[in-house]
């Protein structure tokens, strides 16, 4: 007994954060950073949602004049940029940040300072991009910002610069985040959690982050070429001088299509986590599910040309990419039927997270079958850039990513806060969102088939589109109401929800074996894992408790974590983890200043500010990993 008390006291002393005022800027705790990601990205979600509501209000009737073309074009561009880059990806990073270390029984991410840096860059780049609204020159060229519309000749103002520089800035965050996740999942797993026992949520994160590492450079190159063209007249995309605009499209979509899976796969990971918990059985076909996740990420790199079927490419090229686009359906099919098989052979408990997940399956199948249609080249050539596409990808992204995100918010809310959400409000929010999203996006299929192109700020009456647009607009308001109920539920329950306990849903993964919310050090004893459902292995967990009494696997001699081998997760060595540091914020801020100077064409200033970047890197480097200070 006295050993356990002593261990807990030491851990508490070692991992306790300093005074809040300082902690706010210097924390590297993955739980704090994870929560920040979740909250910040939810704010961006609300902004992008309001942009969508404004657009739907403009389109509620033909020739409406709620907003003009200039505003509308900024709205749809920022809606896309925000949802993809500033909401979904960071939101899923937030889940990853909070959940992955807990799920694999680790004490933090592999590179805690890098993690803090990643968050600060994200939030600063978001502010950077959004500051364009202050000058009424928000990006207005669509989320893929094709050349030559993005060239100075067609868009002389800085709209495009906010876009390309902002994304280059943001990409730093996503890239270092990806490295961090990969190393964490490979090296910091609890002893015994061999790769074939890795939770599917972590497989999904792994697949996602590997995709990100290979996909993002193409985006950065596209953005860089665009800026070189705009600022220094490099002419990459100016055909009159030997450039080629199709090159931009290739670069963009080599990133852009894998990015669909970067968005979708972590959401799939949430689904594979929620379904077994609320079916009270292990997932069916674990190995197949893990393989399907990795296969999707891999094949996802071979389908980008289906975004370009109308550009006049050779038939043989298109046939190849058509086949690949059909093929990628198979891993998704395996997963859908795997989830269904799990639910059907289990005994589903229809609480809010499960409702969102079952709703996801329904919506995602519709998005999936229309996705297959785009592999049919002639059909794609007919409906691409029409509202049919808008309908399709909202079924995939709202259905495939946002529904699981809501499931995840409800699911992990008790773990994050120690309190339960309100079940009745949760169910109400599900039905509002489910009905609202179908009402918003289903009619868009029909509008598209009737010939309505996308990215139009208005349309003429008499083309048969009016009623479908009216339905979509009403649906958008219902959807917005549903999101508001989610927000109210979570905000109110955080203070007044009933106490949750460690594992309120009897879930199977390790994060539920520690307290809610978890202590700063996550686990007093690093858990030893012997199956893919460790939280259900009561004997193993009792064994962990006994180790605490004996003071084994507790790592109390400093800010320590255990590194394990990549494949079998056998103990490798004890790592000294960094703690509080001001340098991640300083570095992120310095890089932000450089990007700002470049934005306004002050290159000398940018070079001087580059020295600040260098200084922050030096400061980061010389700071010792851990220095124990008491406030």
């Amino acid at each position: 007994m006295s050993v356990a008390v002593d261990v807990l006291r030491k851990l508490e002393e070692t991992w306790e954060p300093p005074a809040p005022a300082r902690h706010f800027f210097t924390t590297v705790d993955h739980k704090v950073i994870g929560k920040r990601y979740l909250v910040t990205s939810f704010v961006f979600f609300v902004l992008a949602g309001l942009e969508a509501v404004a657009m739907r209000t403009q389109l509620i009737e033909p020739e409406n004049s709620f907003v003009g073309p200039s505003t509308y074009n900024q709205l749809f561009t920022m809606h896309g940029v925000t949802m993809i880059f500033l909401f979904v990806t960071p939101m899923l990073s937030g889940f990853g940040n909070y959940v992955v270390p807990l799920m694999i029984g680790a004490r933090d991410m592999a590179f805690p300072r890098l993690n803090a840096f990643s968050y600060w860059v994200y939030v600063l780049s978001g502010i950077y991009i959004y500051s364009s609204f202050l000058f009424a020159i928000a990006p207005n060229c669509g989320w893929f910002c094709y050349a030559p519309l993005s060239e100075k000749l067609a868009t002389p103002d800085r709209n495009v610069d906010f876009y390309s520089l902002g994304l280059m800035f943001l990409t730093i965050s996503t890239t270092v985040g990806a490295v961090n996740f990969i190393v964490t999942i490979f090296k910091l797993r609890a002893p015994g959690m061999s790769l074939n026992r890795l939770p599917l949520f972590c497989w999904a994160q792994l697949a996602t982050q590997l995709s990100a590492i290979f996909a993002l450079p193409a985006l950065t190159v596209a953005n860089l070429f665009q800026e070189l063209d705009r600022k220094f007249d490099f002419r990459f995309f100016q055909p009159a001088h030997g450039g080629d605009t199709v090159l931009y499209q290739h670069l963009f979509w080599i990133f852009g299509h894998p990015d669909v899976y970067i968005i979708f796969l972590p959401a799939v990971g949430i689904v594979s986590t929620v379904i077994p918990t609320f079916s009270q059985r292990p997932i069916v076909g674990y190995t197949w599910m893990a393989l399907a996740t990795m296969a999707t990420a891999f094949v996802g790199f071979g389908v980008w040309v289906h975004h370009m079927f109308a550009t006049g490419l050779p038939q043989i090229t298109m046939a190849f990419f058509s086949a690949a686009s059909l093929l990628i359906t198979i891993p998704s099919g395996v997963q859908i039927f795997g989830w269904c098989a799990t639910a059907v052979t289990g005994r589903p408990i229809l609480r809010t997270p499960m409702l969102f997940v079952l709703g996801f399956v329904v919506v995602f199948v519709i998005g999936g079958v229309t996705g297959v249609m785009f592999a049919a080249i002639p059909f794609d050539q007919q409906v691409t850039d029409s509202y049919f596409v808008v309908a399709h990808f909202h079924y995939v992204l709202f259905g495939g990513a946002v529904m699981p995100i809501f499931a995840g918010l409800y699911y992990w809310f008790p773990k994050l806060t120690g309190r339960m959400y309100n079940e009745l409000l949760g169910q109400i929010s599900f039905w509002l969102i489910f009905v609202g999203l179908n009402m918003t996006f289903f009619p868009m299929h029909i509008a598209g088939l009737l010939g309505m192109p996308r990215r139009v700020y208005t349309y003429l009456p008499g083309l048969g589109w009016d009623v479908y647009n009216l339905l979509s607009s009403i649906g958008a308001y219902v959807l917005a109401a549903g999101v508001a109920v989610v927000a109210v539920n979570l905000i109110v329950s955080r203070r007044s929800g009933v106490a949750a306990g460690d594992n309120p849903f009897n879930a199977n993964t390790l994060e539920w074996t520690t307290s809610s919310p978890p202590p700063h050090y996550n686990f007093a004893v690093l858990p030893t894992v012997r199956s893919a459902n460790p939280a259900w292995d009561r004997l193993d967990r009792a064994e962990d408790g006994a180790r605490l009494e004996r003071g084994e696997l507790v790592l109390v001699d400093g800010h320590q974590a255990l590194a394990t081998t990549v494949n079998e997760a056998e103990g490798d060595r004890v790592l000294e983890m960094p703690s509080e540091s001001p340098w991640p914020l300083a570095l992120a801020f310095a890089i932000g200043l450089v990007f700002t100077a470049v934005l306004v064409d002050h290159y000398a200033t940018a070079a001087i500010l580059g020295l600040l970047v260098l200084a922050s890197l030096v400061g980061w480097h010389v700071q010792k990993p851990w220095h124990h200070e008491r406030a």
Partner: protein
Amino acid sequence: MRPASPALLLAVLVLAGCGGRQSTLRTDTAPAGRIERLWWVMFAGSAVVCAVVFVLVLVAVLRARGTRAPSQEDGRGARGLMLFGGAVAPLVVLVALFVLILRSLPSTAQPRPGSASLRIDVVGHDWFWEIRYPDQHVTTANEIHIPAGETVEVHVSTGDVIHSLWVPGLNRKIDTIPAHDNRVLIDARSPGVFRGQCAEFCGLEHAKMGLLVFVDRPDEFRRWLAGQEKPAAGAGGRGVEAFDLYGCSGCHTIRGTAARGRIGPDLTHLASRTTLAAASIPNRRGYLAGWILDPQHVKPGNRMPGSDVNGPDLQVLLDYLGSLR
């Protein structure tokens, strides 16, 4: 689960007569018809796939009320469902679909240059369509005439950014890529009018970049083309002067006069067209007057500046433009 039923909504759609002249589901050519059939085949297949999954979800929901203990092993049934439903069955369906795709591919392929007797060049501009019949030296804007029962080869290009020519009733869309020569064939069978619209975002007024395609009887078409080949007749005199005085000729061409501007649409036979501002408003005297005085009201951001034409001169200008048949 109560998903919005696709079959139901599509039934509503069919009853509503499949919408207007811009629909992909009311076609009149071999390629567009082929795409339409492809859609209905894929729609039917999709409906089956969705139904299977919806039933599974429904079974799961019903199972929630049962009392059976959840199975803890992957039974043969569960794994069989996953692999057959998720991999084997889709593979068979997708191979069949791929064969269908390959067989339909030639219908929308780019034709070799010179594969049809009549050639039309369509040039996208911010934000209107320049239409040329190169062999006849005819230039017009936003309204294409083609003969029924004949095949026409359309070459698309651009004067600025990427646009996309899309007339759903006649064929697939085709992007206008700078420095690329993209082509489609159109083989309309019977007379009628089809509407189209730019389908690639091209800036501020992308929404108001429409066009009309008139499929004429062959004899009508020849008459129309012969009329377009002639220089402007018109009343001339004061109208021509006003056109010059208010700067119109800086941007617009009227063949047979001194007006040779290349920025806006060719107006040589303006009165033979049915719409203005890229198929955005009707070509009637009142609309034309409004357009001349305040084009930024109709189409904010377009390249045409407003003008302070006085009342009498406006009437002269309208008379003149109305005479350009």
